[in-house]
């Protein structure tokens, strides 16, 4: 059966697969992860704050995002963001939001919910005495978080944050619902054009596996190195 396979099609399309598809996937992953961690950290701080309203808003947000399928959220945001934008800017017509911007906003908001749970655990892992010591030195809440708590929390949670980013890397393939061309989308297009579905999807699987497996391996190595000596 495998004798009929023609993997030549893969080599011919490599520039397109990586130059267009993989660049898109990596860009979206990096931007969404970066912005997601920042937003997630703010959500975690809100949730851990004693402020009643803030605390509950953050909790509802995180629970809502974690209870919805990602594809659904991508769809909803694609159709809703133009209207929300119009509402916010006071425009009379839905504003134009490109598919990429829409995807980036969706992934950022969605991943922020997961990152916030990781950062919440990270912040809680810092002994209370550390914040006490920072306050005793005259630091404000913001100074305490920025110089004492968050650097340690981030360091403790770095392996988990990166693991979540690896999951995000795989999830970005869902942008096909918005007709965006990520790595899998590019492979799919070539497969359809040349009628080589099995070869292309096999190759795509191998690439995803290779990237994610080596990334996990590096995360495990990193985990041993960044551990803070106490």
């Amino acid at each position, binding site marked *: 059966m495998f004798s009929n396979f023609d993997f030549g099609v893969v080599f011919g399309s490599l520039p397109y697969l990586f130059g267009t598809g993989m660049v898109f996937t990596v860009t979206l992953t990096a931007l969404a992860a970066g912005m997601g961690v920042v937003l997630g950290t703010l959500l975690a701080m809100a949730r851990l704050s004693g402020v009643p309203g803030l605390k509950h808003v953050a909790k509802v947000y995180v629970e809502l995002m974690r209870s919805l399928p990602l594809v659904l959220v991508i769809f909803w945001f694609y159709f809703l963001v133009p209207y929300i934008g119009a509402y916010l800017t006071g425009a009379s017509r839905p504003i134009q939001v490109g598919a990429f911007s829409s995807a980036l906003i969706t992934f950022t908001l969605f991943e922020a919910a997961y990152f916030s749970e990781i950062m919440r655990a990270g912040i809680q892992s810092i002994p209370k005495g550390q914040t*006490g010591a920072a306050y005793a*030195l*005259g630091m404000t809440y913001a100074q305490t978080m920025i*110089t004492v708590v968050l650097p340690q929390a981030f360091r403790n949670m770095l392996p988990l944050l990166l693991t979540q980013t690896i999951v995000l890397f795989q999830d970005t393939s869902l942008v096909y619902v918005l007709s965006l061309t990520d790595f899998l989308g590019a492979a799919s297009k070539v497969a359809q054009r040349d009628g080589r579905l099995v070869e292309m999807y096999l190759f795509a699987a191998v690439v995803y596996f290779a990237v994610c497996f080596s990334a996990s391996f590096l995360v495990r190595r990193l985990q041993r190195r960044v551990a803070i*000596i106490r």
Partner: protein
Amino acid sequence: MTSTPMPAPTATTPVAPGSVAPSDSGLQSGPLTSPPPRIATGTPMIAIDNVSKWYGDFQVLTNCTTQVAKGEVVVVCGPSGSGKSTLIKCVNALEPIQKGQITVNDTKVVDKATDLPKLRSRVGMVFQHFELFPHLSITENLTVAQRKVLKRPAEEAKKKGMDLLARVGLSAHADKYPGQLSGGQQQRVAIARALAMNPVVMLFDEPTSALDPEMVGEVLDVMVELAKEGMTMMVVTHEMGFARKVADRVIFMDRGEIVEDARKEDFFGQPRSERAQQFLSKILQH
């Protein structure tokens, strides 16, 4: 000004500098007291006035009143769970109080208008578990608050930090991380870190309780030096040797109350309360 506790509400009444109240009357109600050993003038550095604190329904502090004069060394002792650590943490508002008032260097701690970070920056605190910042080097530990809180230039902060590190005898460890130092060394760095803020008073919360016995001495030596230089100190400790050596007064607490507030000589000579006698006999047995 006397450092003898007085019944509220007169405890925080400012007394004009120079007016030293005769305080050997011994007629106070409440805790058993004795006159202060030093003649201190002006308002007290720390005035704790009728302070009560609850955790939920559980009362941890009950009507605590005492004062610490400038330059005075006061040791707070008592059985575990007696509220002594809680009391010292109330002084720089790390723990909120529900009743009473604390005044540090003429600034009210329980007052919405008080700039707490500013107040805390003038009150040095040393913790049982050191609480150095493990992700920062020793140098950074000594300078970070100077730069962020006092806005000192990096050079000046570093010089101040290194001078203090030399004072506690740890110059060689400037570039190490806290995890690479022994407990005793970490606690000495923690004292240097607090001193770097030029505090007007130092609070010690069981500074030697978490240390291996052979490291207790090196930390106490630093504290004795500090006391000799005239630093105002409030020390929660079980080290009765330290109390005998440098304390001016000893406060004995039990079940959230100040049971005895006496001159060192009186406290060790003839503690007047039964509970203090029992405590001393237990702690001095070994």
